[in-house]
């Protein structure tokens, strides 16, 4: 018997159990096309593992449609809607958050709300201000289900850099002392945009305004110090700020090649994982600005016209299983921090997390400092637009 008796009993006690049983039956035999960014081999391998597990347990196969940008899946759903294909769509599940989620939610392209129907949702803190309920300040309202935690971190090679900058403001003197050794992904990529957002939060006079939708007046006032800082920083960037790596993976490759000294990631475990994979030198480590860094939650959502909605829900539910989350948090597997609320876990599940192995380059949650809130999604759009207007010539 896989499940402890207490767990089985608590399953029986769930009011939606009958509905869920129907979902499980409808899902059997379905193939879920999970559209997910495919640039990370470990994530791809984890998705493969999820597919093996759900097939063995629930008869639900998972195929990853590998994207080079999440927006591809959004465009695909829009194209299907344009063609009047309101059912039997090709996208069953999307790894999504932030502006892509906002766009799909506003256009009515999502199925749901479905999160509350998932039996494993009981392990989540779904309070109105909890990170699992708000995506870039946009209320989730059950339209997407969380699966992994993301925290913005920098990585560097201790063999080349003795003292990394301790705040975004300190990047300026650091870059002056080390011209050409710093860059960030292109802001049209979410990681590049996050670098700018992190700087904005630290440099702006009142970070509170970032939680409300952007207005012209607020934008001008809030971003003025950011642009001053960036204008001074840019001449000392890699390639003189003329070109930028396409995404964080390319930048990690630049760090490995020794072309730059600092890389960034939305996954605190990525550095340890990359060392284990031979993609970074053993001496690579993680650092975060002293005031903390931006954190958010990665979600999965189901398009309104998905052909295999039940299968997609089964996968979303499986992702929230404490055993799945512990497997995911294992540094030897993926190393992404769990989205579950530790207070809601039973002793066995807690022990599963406590038994996970560690790695020298894996930071502890304490070392990561406080989590800063993502600004409202409209800020990111406005910020990258303005960056392009200023620096794309």
């Amino acid at each position, binding site marked *: 018997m896989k499940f402890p008796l207490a767990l089985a009993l608590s399953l029986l006690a769930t009011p939606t159990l009958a509905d869920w049983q129907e979902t499980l039956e409808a899902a059997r035999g379905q193939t879920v096309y999970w559209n997910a960014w495919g640039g990370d081999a470990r994530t791809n391998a984890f998705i493969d593992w999820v597919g093996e597990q759900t097939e063995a347990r629930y008869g639900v196969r998972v195929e990853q449609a590998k994207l080079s940008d999440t927006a591809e899946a959004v465009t695909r759903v829009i194209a299907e809607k344009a063609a009047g294909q309101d059912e039997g769509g090709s996208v069953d599940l999307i790894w999504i958050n932030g502006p892509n989620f906002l766009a799909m939610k506003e256009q009515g392209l999502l199925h749901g709300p479905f999160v509350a129907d998932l039996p494993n949702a009981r392990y989540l803190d779904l309070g109105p201000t909890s990170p699992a309920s708000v995506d870039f300040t946009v209320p989730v309202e059950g339209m997407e289900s969380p699966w992994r935690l993301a925290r913005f971190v920098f990585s560097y090679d201790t063999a080349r850099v003795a003292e990394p900058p301790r705040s975004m403001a300190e990047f300026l003197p650091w870059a002056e002392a080390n011209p050409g050794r710093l860059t960030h992904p292109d802001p049209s990529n979410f990681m590049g945009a996050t670098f700018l957002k992190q700087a904005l939060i630290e440099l702006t006079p009142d970070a509170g305004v970032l939680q409300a939708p952007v207005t012209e007046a607020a934008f001008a006032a809030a971003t003025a110090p950011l642009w001053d800082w960036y204008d001074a920083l840019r001449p000392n960037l890699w390639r003189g700020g003329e070109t930028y790596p396409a995404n964080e993976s390319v930048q990690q490759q630049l760090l490995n090649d020794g*072309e730059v000294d600092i890389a960034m990631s939305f996954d605190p475990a990525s550095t340890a994982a990359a060392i284990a994979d031979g993609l970074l030198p053993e001496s690579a480590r993680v650092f975060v600005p002293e005031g903390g860094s931006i954190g958010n939650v990665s979600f999965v959502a189901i398009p309104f016209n998905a052909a295999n909605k039940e299968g997609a829900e089964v996968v979303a539910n499986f992702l929230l299983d404490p055993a799945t989350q512990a497997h995911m948090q294992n540094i030897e597997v993926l190393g992404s921090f769990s989205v579950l609320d530790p207070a809601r876990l039973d002793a066995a599940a807690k022990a599963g997390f406590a038994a996970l192995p560690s790695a020298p380059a894996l930071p502890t949650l304490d070392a990561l400092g406080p989590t800063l809130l993502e600004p409202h999604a409209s800020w990111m759009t406005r910020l990258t637009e303005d960056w392009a207007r200023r620096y794309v010539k």
Partner: protein
Amino acid sequence: MSHEGRVLRGVVLAVVVLGLIAPIALGLWQTGRAAFGILPALGRDTLSLEPWRDLAALPGLATSLRLTLVTGLGSTVLSLLLATGFCAAVHARMSNATGARLLTPFLAIPHAALAVGLAFVLAPSGWIARLLAPLAGWERPPDIATVNDSWGLALMVGLMVKEVPFLLLVILSALSQIPVARQMAAGRALGYGRGIVWIKIIMPQVWPLIRLPVWVVLAYALSVVDMAIILGPSNPPTLAVALTRWFSDPDPAMILPASAGAVLQVVLVALAVALLIGAEALGKRLGRWWLRRGGRGLSAEPGLWAASAAVVALMAVGMLAMVSLLVWSLAWRWSFPQIWPESFSLKPWAGAQRGWMRALGNTLVLAGATAVLSLALAIAWLEAEDRARRSRAAWAEALIYLPLLVPQIGFLYGLNVGFLQVGLSGGIWAVIWAQALFVFPYVMIALSDPWRALDPRMIRAAAALGAGPGRRLWAVKLPVLLRPILTASAIGVAVSVAQYLPTLFMGAGRVATLTTEAVTLSSGSDRRVTGVYATLQAALPFAAYLAAALVPAWVHRNRRALSGGVT
């Protein structure tokens, strides 16, 4: 014209028009509508110029346009000059067969795979820099933009590594129709230098034979996406890359200006081709005056040697790129400034095995299906021409070239919407169809010349012996043409393997091929896994070319006149 001939001709024409031309027209129509504000899915149904205003307001558009024109026109013109110079310098010294064999790897390797390899070879932390590092005393890679440079030079190099061999092959095949040795002798006897004979006598005859392929190269260079993502500038990128980005913007309303941009891309290619036509007309006038002046002129010899040296350098860089892919796929740690990997491992092959086996399977199915379908259609077309005893009209030639001249980004989004409306998307058949749009023209072009060059006496002899048209086709033409038919299939396979955008759009991301995986992975950080995919991606067409060379040699091992005669 026999009745049968007319029926076959009608059927072939209908298949080509409905199967190949109609989808492109449909796609252009949908894109065009969106460019003028009509996209019902977003609730837009009034005609407006707003998408164009939005497009014009996008930052960096002017730079993108300039970059596109400079890299596209620049690489095409340079490739043409280099290929011509190289031909002039070595044509007399090298047989066509040797030339074709040397060029095969460059023709076979898909743009994306080559770009991945080149990015490593040329980068400041790449292979060339590592060779120089001990001499220059670099402990860290120099901060010079040798790839993704803001002028697009690396992109031009990448394009030229692919285009020069293609043009060389085209020029070599054109030269086989011209009595080069005799004209050269005559020209030399009249006191013209070797290079001048080439420019004044040979090339004017070659140009009409290679005009269309040059247009295809130009259209391709102006609208390439995968190679431009990997090697080109990023801030801003070329127009085609910018369009791909805008089509996948989080804000769906961006589809409207992106569609306007796609129309602009089509116009840009049309203008560039028009420019080439204008240059040709001007060249004709000036050329005649120049020819009649009769000047023996200076020696063009240094130019020829410079061109040859440049071609050899390009090939060497291309070779390094291909080798680097294989080495990376077997490496574990390989950091700057190591010239050779510090540790090797088969993990990249073993770890990604499930992925690459599936991608390889899909790629094989797609390549096989599109090559066979395209070949069947091409043979039917050529046979219909034979039976109708007609040569090809100019409009028919235009039909064949159309899919290669219209930029893919211009109609693929619209075509996807069209396919979805008839309930045909996301499946392998949709991808086969979409790929066939681009595979068929190449197969057709590759097969046309050898088919026409078939000795008519053989057919007449067969007819005199009582063989009907069907038997003449099956028992005489196809066996004799086995080699060119297999070569055309190999080209078809290579084109199919390299297709990126059609596979991505029509397959709804579900049909993973070696190319879609390689391009996706090249946006990641693991060169080793990318190396696995790119190696396979290059190996597959290469195997097809090899088979196309070995199978006829074996089948015709006791037919001396067929072993290498007709190609």
